[in-house]
């Protein structure tokens, strides 16, 4: 199956700063997604990263807070902007691969 690599795997950031998470896939994929898992909660879809156009955000998530880039069919970035402690979560990149949704290993973000 497709291999998904996320960077960084973890980070500790100061409140008010921004962090950009990178997601690289070893195969071209049409659909890429970003999920969040807050402590003790289930995974929640943030947005669908569309190649060559603006991302499609789910209810409760906005572009100013979570800007997403998708320059080609193998790469995407998610930025968590102006971070607060409430943004401390695991952020996961995922792709649709042969009708299955695959996930990267996640980025564990702690905001202090």
């Amino acid at each position, binding site marked *: 199956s497709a291999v*998904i690599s*996320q960077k960084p*795997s973890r980070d500790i950031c100061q409140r008010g700063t921004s962090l950009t998470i990178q997601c690289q896939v070893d195969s071209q994929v049409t*659909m*890429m*997604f970003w999920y969040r898992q807050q402590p*003790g*909660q*289930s*995974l*929640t*879809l943030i947005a*669908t990263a569309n190649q060559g156009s603006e991302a*499609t955000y*789910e209810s409760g998530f906005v572009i100013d807070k979570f800007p997403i880039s998708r320059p080609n069919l193998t790469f995407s970035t998610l930025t968590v902007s102006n971070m607060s402690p409430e943004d401390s979560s695991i952020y*996961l990149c*995922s*792709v*649709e691969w042969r*009708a*299955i*949704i*695959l*996930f*990267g*290993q*996640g980025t*564990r973000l702690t905001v202090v």
Partner: protein
Amino acid sequence: DQQVKQNSPSLSVQEGRISILNCDYTNSMFDYFLWYKKYPAEGPTFLISISSIKDKNEDGRFTVFLNKSAKHLSLHIVPSQPGDSAVYFCAVRNYGGSQGNLIFGKGTKLSVKP
């Protein structure tokens, strides 16, 4: 309100016995159901799925059962092995959304004891 519920946060089973993980959902329009397994510091790994036109799907030691009238699905692992110890997430495809628009339960932590 949660649309996908896994009411057991944890489950402990003896090696070789059957593990049964349960999941309930609220919307009868959901048409595709998935189970993922997650080890610490790793992303979720796809295990098995089932479409709403079926009531059972089997893959090796893993079987998923779907009871549409009860809006309930379960994952059976037989026989359970210590390497199965992980958090198991139930997910449903959110109808009308993209393929990747999955709604997850909170997970059940399975411990298989040797």
